């Protein structure tokens, strides 16, 4: 019984967040959202989800704190190195035939994926002709992405991943270490536009050659995944590429026919033309 009440409270909170702030988590995978909201309730010191809802409705300052629970900011540079290796070896050779390129990193979190791609494009000589769009719904994550500063103790893993991705340079060429932090080079973000964009409530981006959206759709339910994939299809240029997270796929999507597998094992797809 108490269980059922809590599920109802969560439903109401998500509805309230949508109506009041236009953040729409109503169709996110519920088990994980529930886990994180219960954590928020405990850590933020509320006795019920309803009292947390009361507070966030009346106090906008509460919203970012709640967003930190509702969105999952877990990332890594060159996460799944084989994905980046496949981009390097199979996708970038195609992209190099275009005079100018647009790349969209959707759900870019705190920027690790953005800097990974920027480095990859530099190494392959495509950076200068590329504009990168890095988007997320969490303003604090976007700000962190823009800053490009990471704890130094994470760099070891990043370096290892970069090597495994077939990196042609040393990761240390791209950051300076100071006070326990690695500050990534400004030149990496010269061609990056950071902006607030939701895959749930916002519209298409035009004429992308590559969209990388990793470990975002795993948080969506099926219909929402479908919406996002439709958005990607409409945002891609002819024969553009879409890369997903290693446990995400187009298999169950109604848009599956709109794509062909390009590197199947790495969840890299290509827009199929009718």
């Amino acid at each position, binding site marked *: 019984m108490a*269980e059922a009440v809590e599920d109802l409270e969560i439903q109401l909170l998500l509805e309230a967040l949508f109506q009041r702030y236009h953040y729409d988590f109503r169709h996110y995978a519920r088990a994980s959202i529930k886990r994180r909201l219960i954590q928020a309730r405990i850590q933020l010191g509320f006795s019920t989800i309803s009292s947390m809802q009361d507070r966030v409705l009346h106090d906008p300052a509460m919203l970012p704190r709640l967003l930190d629970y509702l969105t999952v900011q*877990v990332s890594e540079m060159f996460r799944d190195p084989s994905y980046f290796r496949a981009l390097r070896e199979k996708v970038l050779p195609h992209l190099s035939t275009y005079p100018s390129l647009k790349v969209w990193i959707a759900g870019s979190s705190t920027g690790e994926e953005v800097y990974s791609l920027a480095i990859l494009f530099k190494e392959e000589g495509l950076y200068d002709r590329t504009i990168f769009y890095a988007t997320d719904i969490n303003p604090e994550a976007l700000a962190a992405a823009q800053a490009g500063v990471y704890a130094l103790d994470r760099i070891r893993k990043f370096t290892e991943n970069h090597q495994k991705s077939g990196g042609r340079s040393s990761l240390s060429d791209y950051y300076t270490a100071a006070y326990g932090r690695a500050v990534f080079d400004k030149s990496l973000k010269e061609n990056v536009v950071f902006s607030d964009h939701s895959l749930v409530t916002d519209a298409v981006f035009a004429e992308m050659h590559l969209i990388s959206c990793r470990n975002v759709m*795993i948080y969506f339910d099926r219909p929402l995944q479908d919406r996002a994939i439709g958005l990607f299809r409409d945002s891609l240029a002819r024969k553009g590429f879409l890369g997903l997270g290693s446990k995400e796929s187009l298999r169950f999507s109604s848009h599956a026919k709109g794509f062909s597998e390009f590197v199947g094992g790495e969840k890299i797809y290509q827009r199929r033309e009718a």
Partner: protein
Amino acid sequence: MTAPSPSRPHTAVVIGASAGAVQALLATLPALPADFSLPILVVVHVPPDRDNALASLLQAKCALTVKEAEDKEPIAAGTIYFAPADYHLLVEAGGTLALSTDEPVNYSRPSIDVLLESAADAYGDGLVGLVLTGANHDGAAGLKAIHDAGGIAIVQDPTDAYAAVMPQAALDACPAATTMNLDAIASYLSSLGSA
């Protein structure tokens, strides 16, 4: 040790194991008959960048279908699902599986607590949860959640376990759990699924 009541209908089995898991699972899952009717969801702590070789190892030895869990996959009876390396495995209320890249819990991803707690929530008193050998505390809170939701909590007898810490921690958190050695677990599980 009293065996839990075999009369109530069960809907799923969840298992968590860490150090010594391979041997413990080999001693229990291959014993299940081909017509075993419940889904079995398993979290084993494996290094993040190791692909789940365990599923293929067990597939070779089990009468049931063994596979790596996929995101949004409907849960099928008589199938053994393993959490993929570096992802949490959760159960959704509608009977589908979900994966997540949320922060590690108890330093672990996949975490046993995450699976057990979400399964307790989805299945309530129809769930059977087992915490086997391991050298950390993951699974203790999850087993208690299963018990609190009316499900059946079973712990591998710490003296029977390759690593006693994890089953002991589960027992400390959930003293009402039944302890069994691996042989008893194997025959108990077999008895569950042949309804």
